[in-house]
């Protein structure tokens, strides 16, 4: 074991400890105690993560082996952590943003009862633990353990308010959809083991092991892995769970369904980029799926009225952008966008939480308006988030999104066009949300207006920190064309080979100028359109099509759910009721009937018994004399 990393085991252990304390003591801990424990353990992990990050930055990386997790006839899977550039970066995002969200939650969830409050923090800590396991694991199996763990926590937290049936349905939907993806991932793992005989990153992800695989193997494995990623990261066709997942408490949406868990698929692909780079078909599939998801989700977000739903579709759309980057081989841009997106999307979710808190649970933006005067901090930080996601120069989103767009331009002009259009839609719907919510006149009830207030410091301080990060987060990846060095690409270069840029500096500058000008245009358009917003009726046609989310859920209902239900009821009536029940009951009836008939032999008459005995003896005689 490397001495430099002798504290690394604490990073996931601390949240696990927090989970155990909060989970087991949820009935006896006071609210402030469980909030304190929940936040403190994540803070501890964050501090160790920073120390680890500094070590990694100095060039110390390594695999820390703890014990053998599994040893089955030739296959050995170690329980080990891999600390390198990629995982240390994700550690920072998870524990850093996670800590802020824990602090925020102490205020946001304050109306909950003591034991529910502790339960919430227990789940949240368990989530952080699983997520850390996912990114730190030194092989695919540990990653898979974390992968399932975050799925479970996501389910638990979406269904946190379990009295509400719709919420538990949403939780189940998320779980089932994730399971579909997980199956793909599991198959990919089995395929990988059968071909290479190992799951350790250090043994699988190198040229020597790649040589053992045929093109067919690589394509199959990467496609199946991508199926897993579509489940976890909400891509077509498995994206519909994410908007429903907004049933959970808002900080949960910020942590799990925006900043961390949904980026697990991107982590997986970035981690195994060496496999994906040699699977051209898979890359094309990822590009198309990513682009289609980005476009579809952005178009749906245009017409939504629930503040969290807009952000949810926006998340799906941004994840689509990340997959677009992965598909075009631009892994650094994808990881970069994960980082900046974690900042600004967490910021906006927490901001929406602050709004919902002030509005007393109201989520429909048509009933809001003019909130800027009442909650300045929330409004300004939210505006920063909007500017960042729209890609205004100077904010973090600009750098990462621009890198993705530049990569797409180098790949294919049509793809670039669609991606750019999606980016414009992003700017439009985000500012639609901002303008309707924070400017103009208040449209809610009088009681709500009276109740409006800025949120407490435990909520605004994380907002401010995240807002600052949303601004400066992009400066670690300033492209060379703007006089930077792209620190992030250099940092990640041992894991992800730097993509060679084919674009000239002029083209790149031109693309930046174009996208910036168009985004500004989109924002202006949103301002003109929604400045004097009145709750309008949907005007049919395309807009109701978008409002109903492209009828994707309805399609799934018709194509998958109904036929399965039909087939099930058919099986129930014919196979179950007739054949299986019939044979089981038939055996019972037969025995019953037979017994009834045999019963007459047991008459109780001694004479009858003796007669039978004599007849039996006679029979034996007959057999003895005539048969043998």
């Amino acid at each position: 074991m490397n001495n430099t990393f002798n504290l690394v085991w604490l990073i996931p252990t601390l949240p696990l400890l927090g989970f155990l304390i909060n989970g087991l003591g949820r009935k006896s801990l006071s609210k402030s105690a469980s909030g304190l424990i929940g936040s403190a353990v994540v803070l501890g992990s964050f501090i160790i993560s920073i120390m680890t990050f500094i070590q990694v930055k100095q060039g110390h990386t390594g695999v820390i082996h703890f014990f053998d997790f599994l040893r089955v006839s030739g296959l050995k899977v170690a329980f080990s952590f891999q600390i390198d550039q990629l995982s240390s970066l994700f550690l920072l995002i998870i524990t850093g943003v996670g800590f802020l969200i824990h602090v925020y939650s102490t205020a946001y969830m304050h109306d909950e009862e003591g034991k529910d409050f502790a339960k919430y923090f227990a789940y949240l800590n368990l989530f952080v633990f699983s997520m850390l396991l996912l990114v730190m694991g030194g092989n695919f199996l540990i990653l898979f353990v974390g992968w399932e763990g975050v799925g479970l926590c996501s389910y638990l937290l979406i269904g946190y308010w379990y009295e509400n049936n719709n919420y538990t349905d949403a939780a189940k939907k998320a779980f089932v959809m994730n399971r579909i993806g997980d199956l793909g991932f599991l198959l990919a793992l089995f395929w990988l083991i059968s071909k290479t005989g190992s799951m350790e990153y250090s043994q699988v992800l190198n040229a020597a092991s790649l040589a053992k695989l045929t093109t067919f193997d690589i394509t199959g494995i990467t496609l199946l892995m991508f199926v897993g990623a579509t489940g976890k990261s909400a891509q077509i066709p498995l994206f519909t769970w994410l908007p429903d997942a907004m049933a959970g408490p808002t900080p949960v949406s910020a942590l799990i369904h925006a900043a961390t868990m949904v980026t697990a698929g991107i982590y997986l692909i970035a981690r195994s980029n060496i496999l994906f780079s040699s699977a051209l078909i898979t890359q094309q599939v990822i590009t198309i799926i990513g682009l289609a998801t980005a476009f579809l989700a952005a178009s749906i977000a245009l017409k939504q009225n629930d503040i969290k739903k807009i952000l949810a579709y926006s998340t799906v759309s941004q994840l689509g952008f990340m997959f677009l980057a992965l598909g075009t081989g631009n892994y650094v841009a994808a990881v970069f966008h994960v980082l900046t997106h974690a900042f600004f999307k967490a910021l906006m979710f927490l901001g929406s939480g602050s709004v919902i808190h002030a509005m007393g649970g109201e989520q429909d933006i048509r009933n809001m308006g003019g909130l800027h005067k009442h909650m300045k901090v929330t409004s300004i930080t939210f505006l920063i988030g909007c500017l960042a996601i729209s890609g205004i120069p100077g904010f973090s989103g600009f750098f990462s999104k621009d890198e993705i767009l530049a990569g797409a331009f180098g790949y294919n002009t049509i793809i670039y066009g669609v991606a750019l259009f999606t980016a414009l839609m992003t700017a439009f719907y985000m500012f639609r949300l901002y303008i309707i919510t924070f400017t103009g006149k208040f449209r809610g009830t009088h009681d709500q207006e009276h109740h409006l207030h800025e949120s407490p410091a435990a909520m605004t301080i994380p907002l401010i920190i995240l807002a600052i990060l949303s601004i400066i987060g992009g400066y670690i990846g300033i492209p060379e064309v703007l006089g930077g060095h792209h620190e992030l690409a250099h940092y990640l270069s041992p894991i992800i080979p730097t993509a060679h840029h084919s674009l000239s500096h002029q083209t790149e500058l031109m693309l930046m100028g174009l996208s910036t000008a168009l985004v500004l245009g989109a924002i202006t358009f949103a301002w003109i359109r929604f400045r004097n917003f009145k709750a309008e009726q949907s005007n049919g046609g395309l807009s109701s099509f978008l409002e109903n989310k492209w009828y994707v859920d309805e399609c799934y209902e018709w194509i998958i759910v109904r036929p399965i239900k039909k087939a099930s009821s058919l099986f129930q009536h014919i196979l179950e009721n007739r054949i299986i029940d019939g044979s089981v009951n038939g055996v019972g009836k037969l025995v019953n009937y037979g017994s009834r008939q045999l019963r007459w032999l047991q008459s109780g008459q001694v004479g009858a018994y003796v007669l039978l005995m004599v007849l039996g003896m006679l029979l034996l005689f007959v057999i003895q004399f005539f048969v043998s």
Partner: protein
Amino acid sequence: MDIKAYITLSLVLFTIGIIGVLVRRNAIIIFLCVELMLNAVNLLLVAFSKMHALSPVAKASANFASDAQIFVFFIMVVAAAEVSVGLAIIVMMYRNVHTVDINFLNRLKN
């Protein structure tokens, strides 16, 4: 005497016993008939033993010829013991149900 006479006699006795057991309902009569069957077999055993004792194989052995005769005495002793048990059961039956009709004993409960 010819062995066939013994066989016929014991067959007749045995058949009387069987028919008695089958048709009579009085427990004591049935019991007598059972004893009759037992003794029919006993008689046959003695008869065969006597017949066998005349064979040259048996003559070579000192006590071979008398084995079955001794068996029969044992069987009679055991039968006497069995009779006492059987009669005791019939007495107990009479005490409980005040009859010795076996058709009265056709149920297990009550």
